């Protein structure tokens, strides 16, 4: 329509146009707000902290700590505002010792070394369980020493790393087979020498974890007899720290747990990539890791059932003489629930 006909009417058009534009903008804003709101319910962005908080973690170079390696490699720690320094140790027991000595803020270790430390009076706590497996631990024995079944272990020399899950597994294994644990001779051997000692015949068998199990099998070749017992023991790997550190750095622990949850999700969504990434971090061959890897469960939680395991292991520690006999300690104060409760509370089934 030509504009020259009616100045009055043309003068009205902008007013109406403004109303239309305002209505359109309002409608569009409503739609955008709804879409963003909806997306907001599905994705919660993490806001990286301005300054990174430093945390040192002592940890053995084992696949059990895979979520730690994934979180570090994928940059999840930095995303959550943490600068994590990993301090490699030969096993979880050594890692906990660094924490006890104040040389590391946190450690990753099996619950057995944690129990031993607690029964010895250390003020430690578990922030989260991040791994469990009933088929990680195994007895690898020399066939040429007449060992074919569990009962053949009686009277034999069995190499273990004392005070670790390896020793506890042997105990549980023997009981499961109704064999007296005292009927075998324990020989203290550090993990990295187990395969060698078994191969040279210093010991008749060993009770240990991956990748030592695989190393021992490879060292013995056809001479190896491997015995698993998933009904006897479920090993867990945990994030452990001093109680004062855990309570004093609650935000940092929360960030750590959040980063580990991202690592867990990554492992669940892209398992092959996660395996490659962990193998790369551990500087080991992927194929050598694969047999054990399939039996590993990587999940962050704090379960009520873990209290029973801890109490059972405390009784074992006393029977083994690591500490004098006394009532089984209450482990509940040694489970630090706050971080998981703050992030994903449904993962905490500990009665609290």
């Amino acid at each position: 329509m030509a504009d020259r006909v009616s100045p009055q009417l043309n003068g009205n058009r902008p007013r109406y146009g403004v109303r239309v534009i305002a209505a359109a903008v309002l409608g569009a804003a409503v739609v955008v707000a709804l879409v963003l709101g909806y997306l907001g319910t599905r994705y919660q962005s993490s806001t990286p902290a301005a300054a990174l908080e430093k945390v040192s973690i002592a940890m053995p170079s084992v696949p059990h700590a895979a979520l730690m390696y994934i979180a570090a490699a994928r940059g999840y720690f930095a995303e959550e505002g943490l600068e994590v320094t990993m301090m490699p140790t030969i096993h979880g027991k050594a890692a906990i010792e660094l924490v006890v000595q104040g040389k590391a803020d946190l450690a990753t270790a099996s619950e057995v070394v944690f129990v031993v430390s607690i029964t010895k009076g250390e003020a430690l706590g578990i922030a989260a369980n991040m791994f469990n497996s009933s088929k990680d631990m195994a007895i690898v024995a020399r066939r040429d020493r007449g060992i074919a079944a569990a009962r053949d272990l009686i009277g034999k020399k069995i190499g273990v790393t004392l005070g670790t899950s390896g020793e506890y597994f042997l105990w549980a294994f023997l009981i499961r087979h109704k064999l007296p644990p005292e009927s075998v001779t324990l020989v203290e051997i550090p993990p990295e020498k187990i395969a060698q000692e078994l191969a040279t015949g210093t010991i008749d068998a060993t009770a240990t974890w991956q990748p030592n199990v695989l190393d021992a099998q490879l060292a013995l070749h056809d001479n190896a007899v491997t015995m698993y017992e998933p009904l006897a023991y479920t090993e867990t790997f945990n994030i452990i720290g001093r109680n004062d550190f855990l309570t004093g750095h609650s935000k940092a622990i929360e960030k750590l747990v959040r980063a580990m949850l991202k690592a867990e999700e990554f492992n669940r969504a892209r398992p092959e990539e996660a395996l490659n990434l962990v193998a790369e971090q551990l500087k080991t061959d992927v194929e050598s890791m694969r047999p054990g890897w399939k039996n590993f469960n990587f999940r962050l939680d704090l379960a009520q059932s873990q209290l029973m395991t801890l109490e059972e292991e405390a009784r074992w520690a006393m029977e083994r003489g690591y500490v004098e006999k006394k009532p089984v300690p209450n482990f509940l104060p040694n489970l630090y629930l706050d971080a998981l409760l703050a992030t994903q509370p449904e993962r905490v089934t500990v009665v609290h």
Partner: protein
Amino acid sequence: MKIGSKERLATASLLGVICVIALAVWWTYAELDDASRERREASDIARALTDMRLVTDEYALNHSERARAQWYEVSRRVDNLLAASRLAGQTEQELLAGLRDKRTEGQQIFGDLALTPADDRTDASGAELINRRYEVQSLNRLLIFEQDNLGAAFRLSDLATERGNIAERRLFVVVLSGLALIATIKVGVSWSIRRNVLTPVARLQHVAYQVAGGDWGLEFGRGGDDEVGDLTRNLGRMTQSLRHSFARVERSNQELVSLNKELETFSYSVSHDLRGPLRSMDGFSLALLEDYGDKLDEEGKDSLRRIRAASQRMGRLIDDLLGLSHVTRVNLKIEIVNLSEIVREIAAALDHQKNARTVQWLIEENLTARADKNLLGIAMQNLLQNAWKVTGKTPEATIRFGMQRQDGRQAFFVADNGAGFNTDYAAKLFEAFQRLHHADDFPGTGIGLAIVQRIIRRHSGTIWAEAKEGKGATFFFTIGQPEHDNPGQDNPAG
């Protein structure tokens, strides 16, 4: 794009959105239903596992055969529930797989709890210790498995609840988004209607109003590509055509006005200029009769008398022509005029003139009209004089003035019971110099009714007559919206 196409597009979009919303709602409802079913399944599993944990505790306390039997019964129930489970999703499947594995392990542990002897190489006290350790370990493991299984069942329930929550949120978002989308489409449609229909129509209305008010300079414009645009262009063409027609009429009108004015001026001046010779003719004829009457014979006197009569008749003709010219040129002064009063005054004058006759006057009282009093007086004078004349030979002459309603209008009338006339010639009644009677029967110039018609026309009225020969005639006239004080030259039609 045409408005019709836009309307179809908007309707299709709206229906499309509604279909999408309906599908989304249906899909979400199905998800809610699934989530509810999964919650029920998870609850059933959790309930069975709780029962199992209860009988395991009872068995651990006293090893009763009843508790053992119940354990196996509830164990079968759990297995059936796990086998029948339709829980989907990767996490759910992983949890179910874990549950089944632990179930298998738990069954094995519970089965092994039926006391088997300790290793035969141990002594009695050693065997008792081993059996005790074995039982403690087995029960511990069993309880741990069952506890973990319960945890897994609750996780299944949580997942189903979360799925339901997500579905509910999605439903909320879908419904709100749909409503927002519908609102946006509605705003868009309204905007489009306003922009493409209402605004152009308002503009058309405005222009049409201005054109109707006489502002022919406004243009309708080119318009858009839609139906309103077509209408705009057609109206534009129509207006242009009318503008040209009016311009032609205007030109003709002006030419007519000019010609009319010249004609009036001419007739006025001719009439005026003729008066002098006529007066001379009459005056000198009278002088001849008075000064030389004794020297003329009767034939000469008669000729002079005829010259005088002709001169006087011509003078009256000229007066009437001037009157006719006057009524078309004079400015109107509109006011409320009492026609009854005017009629009564004219009747009185006629009654008192020389050689007056006896006429019965029937005058309706207080009839008024908005008109120019002088012109209407002239009109009434002519009408009444006409009635007076045509009743000259009627023994009981009656002249009536009144008003009656005709087609919702006031129609004034002057009726007489005089000579009447043949209505076949009624069309000639109001033409100048046209007469329906011979001048010897009823004298006159034949201009009176022409003057009356022009006066009525100037008052936007109409005049007509009904008559029967020998029975009388009735002249009706109406007064409409008079010309607004326009000078006569603005009414070229006269």
